[in-house]
Each structure stands twice: as structure tokens, then as C-alpha cells.
């Protein structure tokens, strides 16, 4: 029988069973995707709940971005599972002592919430299309309207209440959906690199920055594709949000790493060796410096200087791209890096990269691009654009 696994090469001593990595790039992509969901929803909520008016242009875009990502959130997990057909075992008989048992319920609840929120937000549009269109698409819209074309004041008022309620419920739900992932890693006793009380917070905040950064990129790209001027105030609002959250995320990650090295528990020698040799580039250079410090510097500089217009938008776009890179590096350094440090505390493994196959890079890349393919289709069916620029707002 040909090998169905890739054994890892290692140095020092590792337990024999450790030479096969349990979690691969799919488990790097999964928290990244849920992070995008939580982050995008946060942007949507900043408008819906916290009333940041300048984010109106992206509020609905954020919502359906969150939905598109959420639809694909289970896919890396299903691809990874030995028996995906039994996946619902965790929903039917959830073992509540396990953080992972939360997944079925958090994810299930959240996907329903997003669907409902989207439905309420786009209902007027769907009603309009159902009434105007005479083709099969019109019939589809009609089905989604649940046969009611009521867009009276009363109905819209009721919808508004629902939207608000869902947005409020959605914030802790999103944070639960992503926070539990951090808890899955942080609560383990077996790996010193993962074991930290700060892990849920770190995952959560890096999720938020990834979502905000994603929205910045998607908004600007979509404006360019639609040949529509960019609302600078909106981008600036997201830029401020990004700036604040990135600083806090960097602080959390720094404290976690500092605390780990300060405590110096058993196994710290190997961690320090790993971090000062193999992890220098992925961790210090890529994740921390290029992915966090540089965007903070760019944003700080621009805000301090009062940069406006095109320059501001370009600077924020660049920062957003770097932050997206930071978050994927963070997921990678945690998930893969953690497994490269052996449980023995006396060995280091080399992650065996796979290109093809279920756990390969191509599959992971596919999972990551799928939500955006869906998004590009969904924005045609449910256009989220609000291009009426406030006359006070600059454009770029």
C-alpha cells in the first residue's frame, strides 16, 4: 500500500508518532477564513450598531463578504477530516468538554445569523427584482422573498429592528466563532508554543484586523473595477480602525511571546532555539516587522501628517495588504510552527510541504479563493454598493 502520509525529517529527539504532522495548511487556512468572517462582520457592525456613518459605503459589502467567507468556512475542516461524512457526530453528540465541539453550534448559528441578516438587508432589493423581472431569476428572487412583497413602512420598520438585533447578537457570536479557535490552541497542555491564556484574544484581534484589511482591499478594488470614485472618508475610517486594532494585536502577540520566554518553562530552550534560527524570517521579519510594524508606521505617518486623497488611499491599501499577509503568517507560525517544536522539548521537525492532494497547498489555495469567486457572483445578485458620496467626503 503506498504511503498515505508524509513523514517529517527532524533534528534532536521527537516521539516516534510525532514524525507525522496531524494538522497541515488546511488548519492554517481555517482560522484565517473564520477570522475574515469575524473581521468583516465587525466592520458591518461598526456601521449598523455603533453608527459610524462614514462606513456606509462598505457596510453591506462587508456583510456579504462575511457571508461568502462563512459559507466556505467548513470546507478546510471537511477536507482535513478522516471521515467528513461523520462530521455531524460533533453536532449530534457534542462532547461539551471539548472546545472543538463548539464549532458545529457556533458555525451553524452564525451561518443562519448571516443568512438572516443578509436576507433582511437585501429584502427591499429582492422584492424590487421579483416584481420587475419576468425571467427565471425573477422567480428565484420571488422564492427568496417568501412570497411577500410587503415593503411598507411597517414592514421596513420591523426589518430594521431585526437587522439591528441580529447585528448586536452577531458581534459576540462572531467573536465566539473565532475566539474558540484560539482557545483550541491556547488550552492545550501538550505544546508550550500554543499553551497560553492570551491565545483566544490574539486570534480574535488578528481576526478583526484581517477582516478590516480585507474590506479595505475589496472596497478599493471593487471601486476601481466599477470605475467609481473611492470614498476617502470611508477608507480613512477603516484605516483608523485597522490602525488601532493592529497596534493592540501587536501588543498582545508581543506580550504572549514575552511572557512565554520570561516564564521559561520546560521546553523553552528548544523554543528559543527554534525562534532564533528557523523562525527568524517567518516570525520576526515577515509577521512582526513587515506585517505589523510597517503598516503601523505607514498609517501613523499618514495620520500624523494629515495625508489625504489618493495618497491616503494608496497608503491604507498597502497597509491593508501587509496586514492580510501578517495574519496568514501568524496563523502559519502558530499552527505549523507549534507542531515543528516537538512535544519532547528536545527536537525540531520540518513541515513536509504537499502541493497536491487533500492537504496540499493547491487545495488550501482553492479554499481561500473560493469565497471571493462566490463574492464576485453574489455582488451581481445582491448589489451592496452605496456609491452616493456624501458631498462632504472627498473621493479618490
Amino acid at each position, binding site marked *: 500500500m503506498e504511503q*498515505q*502520509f508524509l513523514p517529517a525529517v527532524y533534528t534532536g*529527539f521527537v516521539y*516516534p*508518532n510525532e514524525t*507525522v504532522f496531524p494538522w497541515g495548511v488546511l488548519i492554517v487556512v481555517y482560522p484565517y477564513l473564520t477570522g475574515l468572517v469575524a473581521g468583516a462582520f465587525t466592520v458591518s457592525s461598526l456601521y449598523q450598531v455603533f453608527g459610524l456613518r462614514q462606513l456606509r459605503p462598505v457596510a453591506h459589502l462587508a456583510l456579504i463578504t462575511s457571508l461568502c467567507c462563512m459559507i466556505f468556512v467548513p470546507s478546510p475542516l471537511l477536507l482535513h477530516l478522516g*471521515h467528513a461524512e461523520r462530521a455531524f*457526530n460533533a453536532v449530534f453528540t457534542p462532547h461539551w468538554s471539548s472546545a472543538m465541539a463548539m464549532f458545529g453550534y457556533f458555525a451553524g448559528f452564525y451561518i443562519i445569523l448571516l443568512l438572516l441578516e443578509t436576507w433582511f438587508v437585501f429584502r427591499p432589493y429582492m422584492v424590487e427584482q421579483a416584481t420587475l423581472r419576468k425571467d427565471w431569476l425573477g422567480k428565484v428572487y420571488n422564492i427568496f422573498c417568501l412570497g411577500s412583497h410587503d415593503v411598507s413602512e411597517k414592514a421596513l420598520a420591523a426589518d430594521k429592528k431585526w437587522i439591528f438585533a441580529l447585528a448586536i447578537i452577531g458581534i459576540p457570536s462572531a467573536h465566539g466563532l473565532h475566539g474558540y479557535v484560539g482557545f483550541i490552541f491556547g488550552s492545550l497542555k*501538550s505544546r508550550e508554543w500554543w499553551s497560553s491564556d492570551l491565545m483566544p484574544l490574539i486570534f480574535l484581534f488578528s481576526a478583526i484586523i484581517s477582516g478590516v484589511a480585507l474590506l479595505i482591499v475589496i472596497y478599493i478594488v471593487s471601486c476601481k473595477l466599477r470605475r467609481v470614485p473611492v470614498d476617502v472618508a470611508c477608507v480613512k475610517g477603516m484605516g483608523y480602525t485597522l490602525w488601532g486594532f493592529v497596534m493592540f494585536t501587536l501588543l498582545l502577540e508581543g506580550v504572549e511571546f514575552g511572557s512565554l520566554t520570561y516564564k521559561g518553562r520546560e521546553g523553552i530552550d528548544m523554543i528559543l532555539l527554534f525562534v532564533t534560527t528557523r523562525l527568524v524570517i517567518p516570525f520576526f521579519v515577515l509577521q512582526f516587522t513587515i506585517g505589523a510594524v510597517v503598516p503601523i508606521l505607514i498609517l501613523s505617518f499618514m495620520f500624523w501628517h494629515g495625508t489625504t486623497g489618493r495618497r491616503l488611499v494608496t497608503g491604507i491599501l498597502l497597509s491593508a495588504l501587509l496586514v492580510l499577509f501578517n495574519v496568514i503568517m501568524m496563523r502559519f507560525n502558530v499552527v505549523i510552527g507549534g507542531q515543528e517544536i516537538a512535544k*519532547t522539548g528536545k527536537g525540531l521537525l520540518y513541515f513536509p510541504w504537499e502541493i497536491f492532494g487533500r492537504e496540499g497547498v493547491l487545495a488550501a489555495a482553492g479554499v481561500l479563493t473560493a469565497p471571493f469567486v462566490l463574492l464576485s457572483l453574489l455582488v451581481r445578485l445582491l448589489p451592496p454598493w452605496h456609491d452616493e458620496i456624501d458631498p462632504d467626503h472627498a473621493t479618490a
Partner: protein
Amino acid sequence: MDDRKLLEHKVARRSVLGGLAASLAAGVAATADTLAPKVAQAATAPAEVPSIPGYDWSKHAWAYGVDATKCIGCLRCVEACKAENDVARDPHHFRTWVERYVEIEGEETARIDSQADPVNIAASSSEGTYRFADRYKDEKVHKAFFVPKLCNHCTHPACVQVCPTGATFKTDDGVVVIDHTYCIGCQYCVQACPYGARFFNAELQVTDKCTWCYHRITKGLQPACVEVCPVEARIFGDRNDKNSAISKFIADNRVTVLRPETGNAPNVFYVGLDKEVI
């Protein structure tokens, strides 16, 4: 409201109420279903036991002992376990394994090798047979010994705690096992075990680990590794029986466990560990 609308409302009300009531009832039933066996067990005196012919799990409390001072590193246990339990015949999946610790003069930490070490793999004649290579013969070795390892069947198993489905569990007689028909293969338990005792069974696509040969011990036999060990470095028995090999082993020796700081409370008791053993 006119009559038609009123009727529509009544119908809608009933159907919504009906739907809500149904789901509520179902929810209550689900909870009852979960609680009922627990209530039933508490209420009725003779508790149910799994239908294993000639075996009552409530009468046994299994435990395991390892005398690392006796182990000669012959690895018959490793091969016997693989034969008995159909474990993959490659050097990356083990239900039990043996580690060698060699302390060389002038070095602070011991050199450790096991069956996945490339030098030992090269010394074995095939992927499915194992031996320790004749190493370090030219070094100034001041201490060297073997330590057999296996699943510790902890009293507070981290692996059972993290299983999202309930596929892995601890039996009433103290053995942690995996239900291979229920496991979804997420491998969270593999991550959670601090001892590296669990692995992914690529053939069955579920996780796997030592079961103390549950299919043997419930028939009065010893686990395969204990059966074949020629020097009695591995001991197994019932702690409920004060005269069993394991009860005597624990009573007559100062026993220790691996990584007690995890709080998992392992049930494999060691004699002859060293500060270097991880």
C-alpha cells in the same frame, strides 16, 4: 381585519405555535434522552455492563507497570504489538515504543533515540521490523538505559477531554479506547496528548492508540507487549486484586509517572526513570 385575513392569521398562528411547540417538545425529549440513562442508572441497583462474554468491567481496575532497569531494548514488544493490533508496519506509527537514553561524558543532556531515528531504521532489515543500532560504541558512555513507552491511560485524559464527538473515552475498568466507527479523524486528541501516544491510522482514517489490548485483557490474557517481554520489564494487572503483579509492583517499589505536572494522572507506573527521561 377581514375574515380571510383573520383565518390566515389563525392558520399562521397555529402553524407557528405548532412548529415552536414541536421543536420545544423535541428539545425536551432530547434532554430527557440524555438524562434518562443517568437517572435510570442511579435509580436501579444492578447497573448495566457492556455485553462482553464472561467479563464484568465493574470488577476490574487495570493498571500497567514498567521496570526500566530491566528493559534490554530487544523491541519484541514493539513488533508484537504491531502484529497483535494490525498497526501500520512503518517506523512512524506506534502504539508502543522504546527509547534509549545515552549519557556521554562531558555532555549535559542525554542523547535519545527511538524507532523513528534514521540510524535505527537503517539497522532494521525492513520498515516493519525494529532494532536498536549498535551506536555510541566509540564514545565515553557513562550511563545508558532503555525506557519503554506507551499510552498512559490517564485518569484525567486530555485526549478524552478534547474529543468533540465522544469517540474516545475511558471505560469503567480504566482503559482509554477509541470507537473507530465514530471518530471523525480531526486529530485534536493527537495534539492534546502530552506523551505522543496517539497517531492517525491512515488506513482507517481515524486516530488510534494503545488499548492495553482490551480484546485480550477481557479474556484473561495479558497485553501482547507484556506477553512477549522476555525480561519482565512490562507488568500488567488488576489493582483490585492485591496479589496481582501490578499491585505488588506498586507496593514494593517507589514508582513514578511521566510528566506528572500535566495533571493527567497517568496509570503507567515506572521504576527506573531518570531525570533525563522526557
